[in-house]
């Protein structure tokens, strides 16, 4: 219906806009069409150009970004032109120039700021600023099953009021079902802006407020059965990495790149020790932070008794009236070293214990390849030293030991920032150790769906003969050319250590070539030091191969990131 040339013009025109802007334009046009208003020249509602309004987001797995983009579109519909920015891009010196400052930010790790907001978070905590001119509000994304619910949002909110800024809308904390609350919060935000504007000019075109976006389903729990649980490492290895297959009755909604969340159970031995140490009645019913249940059930299923947070230990010290230095340790150790007076005092302690946090495991299966009613994960037994003894991580040990047939509840944690590109696009996957997990999923998916893009995998571990996770499968994928190539780094099979980044350096030219030709780069596995070393190597390669300066290389990578061609799943 629309001519070739005009279509081309339109494309040219549209290409000049960012994704966010397009979303807005889309809503804008639909608004015009639906309101039947089709007089030309198009009457554009007078935007509030006078005020400077910033809407910033801090995200790790993409929720905050998507939400903020959505909200910005809503604002524009109302003629409010909010400047949308990711906190990783935000120039900190701009803070002093802000007037309206709205933050959408999530919490990660153990109550830590999301990676993209770390710089910002550290800056506002390291500096005592004075920002009386700012009118602000914070929308915190979180998950109440974590001990420090929306911690980052709380901190940001607190800091800005300390900076003398005015909180125009109270802090809004959102759980996993955040859509509705978020939109309500934003309506208040818009309300405030408009009110302030009305003061200024009366002839403000009012546009109907769109209904809040439909609610996206919250956290859905699945009950699965352990179908397989094998240690992939051979005898003589220093590692234990479990390949676990979980089957369900119903179909599981997940995509390659997602993770599943599992809430571990505390160890029975430890609970018995705690009960013995405190003399509390295991069947006594006590109200705890989120549940009211018997002491035994609370300690087994609901409360975190491992590696208590410093803040919790402070409270413990207060309750038991003992002096305890700032530290973190397991409850059992704490009770041993700084005993409670009696069972009743321990009841008080139970009330200050945080909920057991879920642990995430990147899905290593693909519904297309393995069927939609089963999900695989690849779990490394986490080991560490505590009080001079070898100890194991709670959840990974728990999973390593669950026998076949055991029931297990889990939920799917979507990761919008770790997704396969279009089927015809090439991908470079860098995933040593358990980093292989999402890539086993990627490769299986691309195999099953006949994706035509090339696939290049970098894998590393300690020893070839004992630690080559999924070796047989990778060999088959190479045979059938699903894997275009694989580069292996076994760190301890020769005198000098060799890691994936060393293999990347060896293939620098080809790597850069792939990237220049549109390949996406994925990193998965441990954050420290792996993901950092790999990123630095990547920058170096871009710099050397592309004849760029450090700064240009950094921008190049940032650009990839914006295009969704540089994604990480690190922990």
């Amino acid at each position, binding site marked *: 219906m629309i001519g070739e040339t005009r279509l081309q013009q339109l494309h040219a025109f549209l290409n000049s806009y960012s994704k966010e802007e397009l979303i807005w334009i889309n809503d804008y046009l639909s608004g015009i069409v639906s309101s039947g208003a089709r007089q030309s020249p198009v009457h554009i509602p007078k935007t509030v150009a006078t005020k400077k309004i910033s809407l910033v987001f801090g995200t790790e797995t993409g929720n905050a970004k998507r939400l903020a983009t959505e909200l910005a579109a809503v604002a524009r519909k109302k003629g409010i032109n909010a400047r949308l920015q990711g906190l990783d891009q935000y120039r900190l010196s701009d803070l002093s120039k802000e007037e309206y400052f709205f933050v959408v930010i999530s919490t990660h790790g153990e109550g830590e700021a999301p990676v993209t907001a770390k710089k910002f978070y550290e800056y506002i905590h390291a500096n005592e600023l004075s920002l009386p001119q700012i009118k602000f509000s914070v929308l915190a994304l979180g998950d109440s099953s974590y001990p420090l619910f929306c911690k980052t949002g709380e901190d940001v909110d607190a800091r800005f009021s300390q900076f003398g800024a005015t909180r125009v809308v109270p802090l809004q904390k959102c759980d996993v079902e955040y859509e509705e609350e978020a939109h309500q919060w934003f309506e208040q935000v818009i309300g405030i802006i408009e009110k302030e504007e009305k003061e200024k000019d009366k002839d403000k075109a009012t546009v109907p407020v769109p209904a809040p976006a439909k609610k996206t389903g919250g956290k859905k729990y699945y009950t699965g059965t352990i179908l397989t649980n*094998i*240690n*992939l*490492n*051979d005898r003589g290895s220093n590692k234990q990495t479990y*390949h676990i297959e979980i089957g369900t009755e119903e179909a599981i909604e997940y995509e390659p790149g997602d993770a599943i969340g599992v809430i571990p159970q505390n160890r029975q031995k430890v609970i018995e020790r705690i009960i013995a140490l405190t003399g509390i009645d295991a069947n006594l019913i006590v109200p705890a932070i989120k549940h009211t249940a018997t002491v035994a059930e609370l300690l087994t299923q609901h409360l975190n008794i491992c590696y208590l947070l410093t803040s919790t230990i402070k409270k413990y010290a207060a309750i038991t009236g003992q002096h305890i230095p700032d530290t973190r340790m397991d409850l059992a150790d704490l009770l041993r070293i700084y005993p409670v007076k009696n069972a009743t005092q321990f009841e008080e302690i139970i009330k200050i214990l945080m909920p057991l946090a879920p642990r995430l495991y990147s899905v290593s299966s693909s519904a297309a390849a393995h069927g939609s009613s089963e999900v695989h994960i690849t779990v490394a037994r986490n080991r560490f030293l505590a009080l001079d003894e070898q100890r194991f991580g709670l959840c990974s040990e728990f999973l390593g030991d669950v026998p076949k047939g055991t029931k297990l509840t889990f939920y799917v944690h979507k990761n919008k920032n770790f997704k396969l590109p279009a089927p015809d696009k090439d991908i470079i996957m860098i995933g040593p150790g358990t980093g292989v997990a999402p890539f086993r999923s990627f490769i299986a998916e691309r195999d099953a769906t006949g994706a035509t893009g090339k696939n290049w995998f970098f894998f590393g571990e300690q020893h*070839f*003969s*004992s630690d*080559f*996770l*999924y*070796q*047989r*499968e*990778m*060999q088959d994928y*190479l045979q059938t050319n699903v894997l275009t190539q*694989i580069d*292996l780094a076994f760190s301890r*099979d*020769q005198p000098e250590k060799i890691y994936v980044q060393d293999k990347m350096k060896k293939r620098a030219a080809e790597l850069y070539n792939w990237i220049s030709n549109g390949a996406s780069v994925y990193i998965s596995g441990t954050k420290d030091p792996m993901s950092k070393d790999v990123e630095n190597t990547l920058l170096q390669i871009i710099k050397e191969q592309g004849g760029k300066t450090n700064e240009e290389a950094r921008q190049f990578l940032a650009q990839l990131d914006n295009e969704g061609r540089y994604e990480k799943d690190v922990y």
Partner: protein
Amino acid sequence: MKQKKTISPIERIKAASNGLRGTLSKSLDEDITGALYEDDQSLIKFHGLYQQDDRDRREERSEKKLEWLYSFMIRLRLPGGFLSPKQWIGLHHIAGEHSTGTIKITTRQTVQLHGIIKSQLKPTLQSFNTLHLDSIAACGDVNRNVTCSAHPDESPIHAQVFQYADKISIMALPKTRAYYEIWLDEEQLEDKKDPSAVAEEDPLYQDRYLPRKFKVGIAIPPNNDVDVLTNDVGLIAIIDNNELKGFNIAAGGGLSVTHGNPDTYARLATVLGFVDTEGKILKTVYEIMTIQRDFGNRSDRKLARLKYTIDKMGVEAFKAELEKRCDFVLEAAKPYTFTSRKDHYGWKQNHENKWYYTIFIENGRVLDTEKLALKTALLELAKTGKANFRFTGNQNLILADIADMDKPEIEALLQQFKIDKHTDDASALRKNAMACVAFNTCPLALAEAQRYLPSLIDKIEPLLEKYGLTEEEIILRMTGCPNGCGRSPAAEIGFVGTAYGHYNLHIGGDRTGERLNTKYKESLNEEQILQTLDELFAVYKTERTAGEKFGDFANKKWIGIK
């Protein structure tokens, strides 16, 4: 004899191998697997190496989504089985560094190391090279390690005969430089782009090599410790008052059969005649190889050994062809007698008053156990620099060429490590027994052998005691399959594995290796084995004539009538 017409795939691989190079270099660099490309797995044998995997671990590895635990076995080319003490020390350390650590003395007087992973192959061969040792053609369709009666005390002309092992080995080496290029990084001779250019002229093997492995052994009567007649070519030294006159030449020996394949059979070599001069001796061996090269079966490897070629042609026709190719006739065979096939344990002295100590090494496995620190002991003995190392065809070891004055020092060490006691205390049965490798490394094994025989002997010894037969030097041998690597077909009592835990029982072989045994009972388990032997020994004890050997008695009593 039925024959498949199509030539065997191995023939194609050999011809296309560009002088045994194949794609070995690429195979070695392929880091996704511990194995080689399929064709290279056949080629690498010609370099004295076998790709293997730990068969005990297959299931578990597969469950872990890991490939099988591949590693390599190396077999040295060691004509006559001789090492200087320096070389033994080097071998000891190479074994520790690159292999399982166990040194395996084979039934053909050389040694094998197991469990060498792909990336360690080059370093291993390079270390051996610095000791002037190689593994060229220790396996493959070529002449194998040449064996020779091990006991210098046997006769004054031992040294003279011994040299023939080396001469024959050298004469029959493939001419390709592949080994030096691939393992020792030696400059490639010519540009690889033109394969024909690199395929060095090899008048003996050409580009086809032999249809099958080829084995030469040399015996000095009256001891047949090398089982000379089980070889493709056997040379029997003819000695006249301490002078080497020449050799009787026997051809067509071979022990392997295939379960359920009636066309296959074990065969002892046929004595064809006598030759005297060195020139004639070497020429005869050489032309036997060319006949096998030209007439051997290249379509069915199960029927490709010289023994089948000879029977296909007929002994007389074969001899005629040989004389035609040699351009001289063989003299009539000279008389000789074998009286034994054993090792002379303990101290012996030769005509030059040099001393020899033969150590009993059960199944040729040199390692330290809590019972016996054999490997350490041998290292200490080697460090004295005062004894050479000689391997016997019975998988034992001789400390050789020890001067009178040095004997006390060696004796002291033997005592210190209880080697002498270990050798003296072993029963006659045990000392005359052999077992092949079989599990866990041998891919062809159907049943255990060297890992099992010791414990079986523990249970047979009481039976012999029961009948007062402990002094009998009965030759008992076990192999994990009918290939006969432990020469079980040439034993008085032979066990041949049929399935895990099950063995065919063969009896009736003679003591000197001049009559093969015959299958008496099929796939017995341990209990049945012991029960059967109990019955046989009981009859033997009561019915034997004075001094009658078990093998002869068994043959007359239970086989003859069959």
